[in-house]
């Protein structure tokens, strides 16, 4: 049948990355730099007049210093069927929920690939089946999540790790089914005029582990990740009012170790065409709250984020995002800078600077207090 199967399409990228840590390492065997290579090809095929498609995205990284960061993953291997006002997906997929910039509280489907970047924005592929209904009253998504992915953690020799280090080979679970537990999620999202709203409920294995100290083979103390079962109800909301974006993410999480509420909210205000140029300057402010306070497993229990985003709107797509997150209870603060620009049509350079400063001893980030770093990445797209 002619036209039934169109030719598949290859694309993807390869990148060379270097990181430099100016401060002496806090722990033995940690190095002051790393070189790394990553490769992410992508295969896409559609057929059935475009109603069906297959997307395959494997990912590989080699790291010169940390054997845990040398890793591979299937980011996506997903079949999609687009019906009339409904959609079905099956395979390994990636899903993003949420609106805020400093922290993604609501986003729960995919596990964090933490060895990639301490910002937690890189995710592991999640095996799932999804059914989506598109109605006049919004989009309703039903997810069945088949099997659980453990979070990745830097190894003993990697910077940006906890102390003692996490041993991911011995993860423990609340559920007897362990990583084979079936998780379910339901999400409704819609927009009404200037407002975009998302309501979701998740029932299954928490993507955020607790850590249990245990003795390792050589008598050393290791942290063992413990994954609890949780119910999480979440809301994400954005109001787009002229040059202002108002954002809110809120969750209520019920777990054995104690239920809690957390929220992140704030704004992004864009100054268009500053100083008679084509450049836009976005000003960002967000407040991060967790009602567990000092007991929170996240460093962001009462923190303020302020930052700016400079978009050059030039041919090279130059961008700069910089910000500070300040803990309102402790002395701790962290500084982030991300910049990127294109070179020609196939290359891109990006830079990152992360600084952790005056980190209080009781802060979960304490073990990273000497891990400030500058990163340079060169990416070739094909």
């Amino acid at each position, binding site marked *: 049948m002619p036209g039934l199967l169109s030719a598949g399409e290859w694309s993807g990228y390869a990148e060379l990355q270097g990181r430099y840590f100016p401060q002496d390492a806090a722990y033995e065997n940690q190095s002051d730099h790393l070189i790394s290579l990553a490769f992410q090809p992508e295969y896409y095929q559609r057929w059935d007049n475009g109603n069906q498609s297959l997307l395959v995205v494997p990912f590989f990284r080699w790291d010169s210093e940390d054997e845990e960061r040398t890793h591979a993953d299937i980011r996506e291997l997903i079949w999609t069927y687009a019906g009339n006002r409904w959609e079905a997906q099956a395979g390994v997929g990636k899903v993003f929920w949420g609106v805020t910039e400093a922290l993604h509280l609501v986003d729960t489907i995919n596990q964090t690939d933490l060895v990639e970047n301490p910002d937690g924005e890189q995710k592991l592929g999640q095996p799932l089946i999804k059914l989506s209904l598109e109605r006049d009253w919004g989009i309703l998504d039903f997810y069945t999540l088949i099997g659980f992915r453990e979070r990745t953690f830097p190894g003993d020799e990697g910077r940006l790790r906890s102390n003692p280090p996490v041993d991911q080979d011995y993860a423990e679970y609340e559920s007897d089914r362990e990583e084979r537990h079936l998780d379910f999620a339901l999400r409704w999202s819609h927009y009404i005029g200037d407002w975009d709203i998302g309501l979701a409920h998740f029932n299954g294995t928490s993507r955020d582990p607790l850590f249990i100290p245990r003795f390792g083979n050589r008598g050393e103390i290791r942290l063992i990740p413990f994954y609890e079962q949780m119910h999480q109800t979440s809301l994400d909301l954005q109001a787009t009012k002229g040059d202002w974006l108002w954002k809110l993410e809120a969750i209520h999480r019920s777990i054995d170790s104690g239920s809690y509420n957390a929220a992140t909210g704030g704004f992004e205000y864009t100054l268009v065409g500053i100083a008679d140029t*084509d450049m836009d300057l976005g000003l960002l402010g967000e407040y991060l709250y967790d009602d567990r306070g000092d007991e929170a497993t996240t460093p962001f229990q009462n923190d303020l984020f302020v930052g700016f985003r400079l978009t050059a709107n*030039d041919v090279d*797509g130059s961008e700069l995002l910089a910000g500070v997150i300040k803990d309102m209870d402790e002395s701790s603060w962290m500084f982030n800078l991300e910049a990127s620009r294109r070179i020609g049509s196939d290359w891109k350079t990006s830079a990152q600077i992360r600084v952790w400063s005056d980190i209080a001893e009781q802060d979960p980030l304490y073990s990273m207090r000497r891990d400030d770093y500058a990163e340079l990445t060169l990416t070739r797209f094909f």
Partner: protein
Amino acid sequence: MKLSLILATLLLAPAVTLAMTAEERGLEIAKEVDTRDTGFHDFKASMTMLLKNRHGEESLRDMRNQTLEVENDGDKTLVVFDEPRDVKGTALLSFSHKVGDDDQWLYLPALKRVKRIASRNKSGPFMGSEFAYEDISSQEVEKYTYKFIEESEHDGIASYLLERYPVDPNSGYTRQQMWVDKERYIPIKIDYYDRKNVLLKTLVFRGYQQYLDQYWRADEMFMENHQTGKSTLLTWKQYDFRSGLTDADFNKNSLKRAR
């Protein structure tokens, strides 16, 4: 009685036409342009932008466009980027409105994130080109006020010269001069005047072709920036009118699927 009414109407009619102000005549022409382009329902097309700076350095943008006509409101548009490679798969969904800001969502494929974006920024460069979003978005009659200037000849084509003034205070222009083909009621050239009322850009429409025996589309739109010496050549290809698009092809799911 009846006869005198008809007589009166007949006598008055030319007077009414003559009494039409330049504003009314401008609006009338704009409405005719719009009317003749109404009813296409939907189309798909591919777009290529060739960006050139004053040193002659070139840069290419490849994208695909799907547009759905919406009755009594602005069009719905989905644009998917293919080139440059780093933004491949990025897609922009716009619901334009006759009055007020458009609704816009941007899909970032690397993060699988759909972002509602502030659409008030309509005067900034579109993908680093010389086209601003407001230049290529749905051209609704209500987005401008009009004034008829004169009948003139442009490039050997008998045309109406209109001036139009953006209603939106966030527009990057004070006014635009537009030459409209008298016979086909299609724009053939637009001069854009910046916020200081200085000539900023000129857009020339080239290679018009007629689709479905009614709708005229230019193969090329050439935008030249007189202040920076930069230019962008926008080429439209593979027009497919009434391709069967519906409302369901313009939501957040289809935005994520677009690629």
